[in-house]
C-alpha cells in the first residue's frame, strides 16, 4: 500500500543507532496510525549503515508460492472483472473464487499436489 517504493533508495530499513530518546516514546504522530498501520510517516528511516549495499542473503533468491506475473488471470463469473492470480475474491465485486483443485471427471475435491483423483482415478493435469 505504499505510494512509492523506497527500497531503491535504501529506505526500507530501520536505523540501527537509536537510543532511549527514540524507544521510550510513542513516535511523532502518537496514536494517529495505531491499529491500522501502514504508518508510512514513521517507517521512513533512512538507514546510514555501512552494510546497506552488501550482497543479498542466499534465501532471497528462493521464493515459493509467488504467482507468475504473466500467468492468465481469472475472469470473475459475476462481474467479468479480471481477478489477480491467487486471490480468493474478486477485487471488484467480492465474488468468492474457488481456488481449491477438483477432479474434472467426477468433481471430487483434490488434495494439494495430487496426481490422480482419489475417487475415480482420473489423472490430474
Amino acid at each position, binding site marked *: 500500500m505504499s505510494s512509492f*517504493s523506497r527500497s531503491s533508495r535504501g529506505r*526500507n530499513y530501520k536505523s540501527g543507532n*537509536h*537510543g532511549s530518546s527514540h*524507544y521510550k516514546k510513542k513516535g511523532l504522530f502518537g496514536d494517529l496510525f495505531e*491499529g491500522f498501520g501502514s504508518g508510512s510517516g514513521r517507517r521512513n528511516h533512512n538507514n546510514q549503515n555501512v552494510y546497506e549495499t552488501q550482497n543479498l542473503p542466499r*534465501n532471497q533468491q528462493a521464493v515459493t*508460492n509467488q504467482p507468475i506475473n504473466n500467468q492468465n488471470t481469472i475472469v470473475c463469473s459475476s462481474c467479468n472483472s479480471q481477478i489477480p492470480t491467487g*486471490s480468493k475474491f474478486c477485487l471488484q465485486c467480492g465474488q468468492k473464487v474457488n*481456488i481449491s483443485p477438483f477432479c474434472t471427471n467426477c468433481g471430487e475435491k483434490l488434495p494439494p499436489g495430487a496426481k490422480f483423483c482419489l475417487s475415480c482415478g482420473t489423472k490430474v493435469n
Partner: protein
Amino acid sequence: MFAKIKTKYVGKKISSYTIDTLIGQGRYGICFLAHSDDNQKVVLKKFKTKMFIKNAKKNEFEAVILSQLQDKRIPQLLGVINEKGFYGFVLEFKYGLTIKELLFKKHHKFSDKEIYEIGSKLIGIIKYLHHNGVVHRDIRIPNVLYDHGDVTLVDFGLARWSNNQYPFDMDYSYLGDFLLYLFYSTFESTKRSKKKPWYVELDLTDDQKQFLKKLLRLEPTYDSIDDVEAIFLKLFKC
C-alpha cells in the same frame, strides 16, 4: 476527525456486517471492528478512494498474499466489499492488545522471559512468511498483537513477494527495532542518556548486542530467518 468518522459509520450496515467501532486510521484508510449477521467479529479495512485508485495495482498484493496464507497467527482474508462508496477488505478479527498499547498505554515492562516468548513466536511467524516467499515490511509495535501468550502479526498492506527489490532482510531490520522496544520497557532513562545509542545504553551481553546489530545491519546480516531463529533461541533463553 475520529468523531466525524464514528458518526458516519458506527452502527451502519455494510454488506452483511454491522460496524461497531472505529479501531484506527492511517494514510490509506480506516479500520473498523464489525460483526456479521451470525455475530462473528471481523475487521473491515476501508480504503480511502483516492489512495485506492492511486495504488490500485499495489493493493492487490495484500489480497493475494493473504489469500495464499493460512495460519492462525495471521488474519485471514474473509471477503471484499465494494458497495455504496465503501471499498474494503473483510479480515478475521484477532484478539489481543498491540505491543504499542501494552508499552505506552498499559506501561507494561516486559521481562526477559516475555521478550523471549514474544520474540521466538514472532520469529516463528516471520519464518512462516519467508518460507512462503512473503516479506512483511511493516513489523512494528502497533502491528503485533499479544494475547495470553499468543502472538499475532497483522496489517499486510505493505507485504510483498520477496525479490531483489524486496529482500527478506527488510524484516530482520524491523524485527531488531521491534525487540529494542521490548528491551527499553525496563530501561529508566536519565537526561544524560538521551543521545546514546541502544548498544551503549542497554544492559545486554556482547553476543546479544551483536545479534541485534546484525539484524539492524550495523554488521553483515543473517542469511536466513532460520539462522536468526537459531541464534535468538540460543542467546535469549532464560
